[in-house]
């Protein structure tokens, strides 16, 4: 196990060490102490290492992650796991806006709440939020699954493409072209699998499914007011 103390080392030291170490893979377990809300922690990691961040992180924590498992024992700032490709990011606290933005793959678990624009333009990632999510979440969501054990804010799934959204609690309002959909057996199955993988003791049957009505896929005069 290798410990990097950010009260003495810089974020640059941390990321360079993580990137360099990927070449040899001598150390798979990393611990980061005293993060104190610093930005860009463990970004661009490209190997199956584990990184344990012991405190709050700032913007873009685990940004563009590939293969690594990153755990944050605290809250994260804007754009946690943005554009993640693969791997696993777990936030023990809450996340600010744009968590999992544009991410292509992997699993992001947020035990607390996520702010506005959670999963904006998501492209294949799975996001499971233990608490509630803010407004404009999953805006232009393209692929992947967004699971919310609490409530969702205004305009959920606005201009949605093919992301499947599951919400247990109340949805403040649905965005343009997002509708409630029937929960079929395959949905119950994939949702239960995601909840189990995220480690949440929840029943898939308590959730509702939302998806794209696919009415805005091609420009039509009658939909002009929705744009």
């Amino acid at each position, binding site marked *: 196990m290798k410990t990097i103390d950010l009260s003495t080392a810089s974020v640059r030291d941390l990321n360079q060490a993580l990137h360099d170490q990927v070449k040899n893979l001598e150390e798979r377990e990393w611990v980061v102490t005293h993060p104190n*809300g610093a930005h860009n922690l463990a970004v661009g990691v490209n190997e199956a290492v584990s990184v344990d961040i012991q405190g*709050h992180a700032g*913007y873009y924590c685990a940004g563009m992650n590939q293969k690594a498992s990153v755990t944050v024992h605290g*809250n994260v700032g804007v754009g946690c796991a943005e554009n993640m490709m693969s791997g696993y990011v777990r936030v023990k*606290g*809450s996340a*600010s806006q744009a968590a999992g933005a544009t991410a292509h793959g992997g699993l992001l678990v947020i035990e607390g*709440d996520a702010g506005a624009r959670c999963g904006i333009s998501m492209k294949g990632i799975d996001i499971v939020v233990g608490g509630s999510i803010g407004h404009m979440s999953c805006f232009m969501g393209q692929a992947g699954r967004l699971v919310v054990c609490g409530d969702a804010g205004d305009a959920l799934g606005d201009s949605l493409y093919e992301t499947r959204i599951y919400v247990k609690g109340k949805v403040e309002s649905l965005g343009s072209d997002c509708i409630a959909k029937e929960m079929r057996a395959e949905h119950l199955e994939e949702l239960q699998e995601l909840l189990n993988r995220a480690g949440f003791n929840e029943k898939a049957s308590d959730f509702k499914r939302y998806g794209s009505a696919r009415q805005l896929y091609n420009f039509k005069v009658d939909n002009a007011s929705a744009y």
Partner: protein
Amino acid sequence: MCGIVGLYLKNPALESQLGKLFEPMLEAMTDRGPDSAGFALYGDEVGDGWVKLTLQATTENYDFKALIAALESKIAAPLDWFQNASAIVLKIKAEEAVVRAALGELAPTVRIMSAGKSIEILKGMGLPKEISKRFGLGSMTGSHIIGHTRMATESAVTMEGSHPFSTGADLCLVHNGSLSNHFRLRQELRREGINFDTENDTEVAAGYLAWRLQQGDSLKTALDSSLQALDGFFTFAIGTRNGFAVIRDPIACKPAILAETDDYVAMASEYQALSSLPGIEKAKVWEPVPATLYIWERGART
């Protein structure tokens, strides 16, 4: 485009350490705002019939002593004052309007940064570290304080263009974001008699609040109506005589984070500005939701 910080003490025992607790918060926002910085300190209230003003000279080595002497001979009223770098804090037993009129005549180049019972606004160009050192922030005492670090977007980098902006007696505003309808609104507010010193968009927001309050709005009503009147992006922190308030625009792209313990309520653009506060590990930390007013005032929480 900037960093915002605020600290409101619930525990009066900490008032002697207000500046010491706040200084690292302001300096942590240097990357968000390297051009200029400032803060509004609340404390050391003046008594009935008195008013406290903060004045800033816009020229080097301004002779405040001569100004005070001239003021004393113009208004026969008890007064007390002290100088802090390029600013002075003036306490005087007189009507605010009378003092303003006298100062306008005697020293048209001196800017009145704030007026009220409690507020002192100190700001200037330079890195946050330089500003806190210039005014001796670390040793200041008081009940609450809000501050700002500025990355200038369009209007000039000047002392006047720095935040906080006064919005009336004991009221001030700091802003992170960019307003898109400030030009026309400034013209309308000028017709309503509101004065502006800069081309800064935040000054228009401050002027709007000052105008609504003059029209008899409560702070809550004025801030709620600002959601309609102001277009663009903003996170505002507003200092009041008894506390402070936070509000974000409905789109809420600009960041904000709040933390509360038994001892204090703190607000910042980023968590890293809060990380130096005692007991922050155990604090309740959350983000203010869009278009919703949060107010903490002595005695009550809304």
